[in-house]
């Protein structure tokens, strides 16, 4: 479970995230949407401990990430939009490094690596240096690494960028499967169709403020546009002024959804 409580973060004078309250339940796939510069990546960076909020706190499975960073991070896996890989390591060496970092023992590590290598079809290039990988190959390796230690929370930032259709299908199935098996999945994306297809709930953020949190159906109800597309509703929400943000049922519940539907 991820709990954002009154999170605010500024970059100098510019407020990137403003009093964000959000709870993502175990087994939920939450799609985080918003225009460029809306505050999605800042929120994610706060959740994974890269940035610290000016105000508020983030709890990962009950642990405050600022107070217990190691224990909280042990439960997270983060796949950034531009992942860092060590150029001079092979894919297999990178996976081994991640296994060691997460304290996996000598038996479980290689076993889990083999599973992920097979799942992401890495075997053709896993023994080559990562500097020779294409973007898609890198992304598959990063996903494999992210799942090695069986995280309780998976946070992914723009997972579909630069992937071929087959890899996109693989990632979509994977995220859905992880959520169904009880993992909390927090995904930021610009691809509205993906959010619509696999997300349990969506959150729309604009200029640092949450504009909507709920299911697509709830969004349609709140917008009184039963026949409208997510794209149209998204554009209407993010183009409207700050004061005209809709008061959704989810907002009234402080964006909390404790149980999986």
């Amino acid at each position, binding site marked *: 479970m991820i709990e954002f409580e009154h999170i605010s*973060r*500024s*970059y*100098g*004078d*510019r407020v*990137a995230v403003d009093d964000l309250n959000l709870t993502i339940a175990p087994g939920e796939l939450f799609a985080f949407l918003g225009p460029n510069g809306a505050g999605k990546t*800042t929120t994610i*960076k706060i959740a*994974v*401990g*890269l*940035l*610290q909020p000016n105000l508020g706190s983030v709890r990962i*499975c*009950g*642990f405050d990430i600022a107070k*217990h*960073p*190691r*224990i909280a*991070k*042990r*439960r*997270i896996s*983060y796949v*950034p939009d531009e*992942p*860092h890989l*060590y150029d*001079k*390591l092979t894919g297999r*060496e990178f996976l081994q*490094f*991640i296994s*060691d*970092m*997460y*304290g996996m023992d000598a038996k479980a590590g290689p076993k889990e690596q083999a599973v992920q290598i097979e799942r992401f079809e890495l075997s053709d290039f896993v023994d080559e*240096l990562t500097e020779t990988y294409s973007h898609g190959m890198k992304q598959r390796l990063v996903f494999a690494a992210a799942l090695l230690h069986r995280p309780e929370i998976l946070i992914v930032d723009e997972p579909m960028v630069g992937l071929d259709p087959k890899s996109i299908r693989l990632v979509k199935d994977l995220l859905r499967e992880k959520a169904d098996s009880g993992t909390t999945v927090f995904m930021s994306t610009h691809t509205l169709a993906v959010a619509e297809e696999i997300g349990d709930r969506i959150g729309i953020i604009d200029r640092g403020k949450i504009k909507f949190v709920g299911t697509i159906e709830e969004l349609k109800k709140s917008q009184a546009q039963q026949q409208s597309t997510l794209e149209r509703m998204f554009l209407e929400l993010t183009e409207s002024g700050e004061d005209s943000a809709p008061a959704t049922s989810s907002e009234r519940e402080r964006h909390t959804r404790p149980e999986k539907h």
Partner: protein
Amino acid sequence: MTFHRMQNSDATRLPSPSQEARTYRRLRATILKTIFCELCASARLRLALALLMSLGIWVSLFFIMHEGFSFLEREAGAFTQETVEKVFNIFYASLMIMLFFSSTIIFYGGMYRSQEVAFLITTPTSPSRIFNYKFLEAVVLSSWGFVLIGSPMMIAYGVVVGAPWYYYLLLPPMIIAFVYIPTCLGAIACLLVVHWLSRFRRPVVALMGFSIFACGLWLLWTIFLRQQNELLTPEWFEETMIRLSATENRLLPSWWLCSGLLEAARHGGTSLDYQPWAQALLFLSLLVSNALALQMVATWIADTFFLTSYSRLQTEHGNPRIAKVQWIDHLLPGMLPFVPAPIRILLAKDIRTVRRDPLQWAQFLIFFGLVGLYFLNIQSIQNATPFVGWLNLVSFLNLLVVGLILSTFTTRFVFPMISLEGQRFWILGLLPIERDTILWGKFLFSAIVTGIPSSLLILLSDALLQIPPVIIFIHELACLLLCTGLAAIAVGLGACMPDLRATSPSKIAAGFGGTLNLILSALYIIVIVGLTAAPSHLHAITQLGQLSDALDPNSTRIWMTIGVGAAVVIGVGTTTISLRRGFRAFSKMEFS
């Protein structure tokens, strides 16, 4: 499960500090092994050259130091120990200051600006482990030069004074412990500045820069200008040593190192009260305990403040960089109305790109600034050396120095230009211009940008040395040949051996093509300067009536003309061939 039980069970699943340390050691070892194997497989020439040059520098320094210490032993006699102690103290104190600043900068780049650390923060690694990992990197990167210079000096000293075996044994741990201290202080300064003064880090860096500059000026003033005595005399030396006696302060780690090494180099006496090796061990333990204590303090600071300071730094809102077109962007293209318009447009683009990247031109500026300072001081040679032959030789050596600096500039900045265009070739490739035009633009840019300051510097050097007009003309001609030739080699080779995948110019320059460019440039410089310098030097000697039995002044004039003519032929030939090859390769090049 209660909160505390969950917390405890999670903590046990986390790797222990020793496991974590082992993981990072393995990571570093694997990366180093891969790099080494890659170098052995694909860049043997570069590796061999680097090793040979390092060995050459080490051996040369060893012999120079050996000669110096032997000279002191012979000439200074009883004063040797005292003199060496003073010189060592000054040397190590200066190194300590330099290590402090260099490690601060390296540590800042590694800890706060690297993608790797951003990745590591998201893993369950403790901040102290990240700190130690990056700290070790800073230690190695900031001190390898010190080891390269310091070790031959200390070994030469040991050989000259016939130091006992344990002197050589104590040398590495003492140097390592010493290096740790300024690096720790640099890391602590960096962590604290970023944590508390991150908003003001630019003024802090500017202040640091100003402090270094002021220290340098103070040193120059103390050593050369404030002196009552004539330069390079025993009295001058004594006065300088007195002025720099602050380096002998007993609280300085440099004094501990210096004293420890000097004690270790002494032979043991018969008295049980005083044994030099015991004194050396005492200083070693002083260095080691301070180094470890400082590292503990630094680790604690990192553990406490790093994550907060990292976040603070990343969320600072920098001022948007508004770039305007400046008069200087149009100056050079405006001076070349006869050059076709597309080339002038490309020239203006390259000038603007370089101007807006201070990292590029600042290095060039520093190099030429230092050479300029040296040239301004050259007058003292002129005053001290009445022999015209020497002045002539010095003037050609100055030409050589300028040429070598130019070759590093063309290798570092001009050679990678074509490779870098590969990333954005779709822009240039779609323009309605010939491909040759792009290379002409690069060539003209390099030749003119290097030509103007070089010829002015050479003119300054010649004017201060009061060189005859004919030799000035030869120098300026050689300078022109150097600038055009080096630019053509860099542009031609850059087009023949591009690295279209690399995004960093420094990586491109450090590759095989860059190394080859540097070697060919050095050979070209030696040939051009040699062809112009040797006959004119002989001519200068014979003009003074020396060697007149063997050489006729008229024949040396002919030799001088032949030498200059040959230099022109080689220069024009090199320029033409390099460019032609470059054009051919560039026209066939495929960009993805």
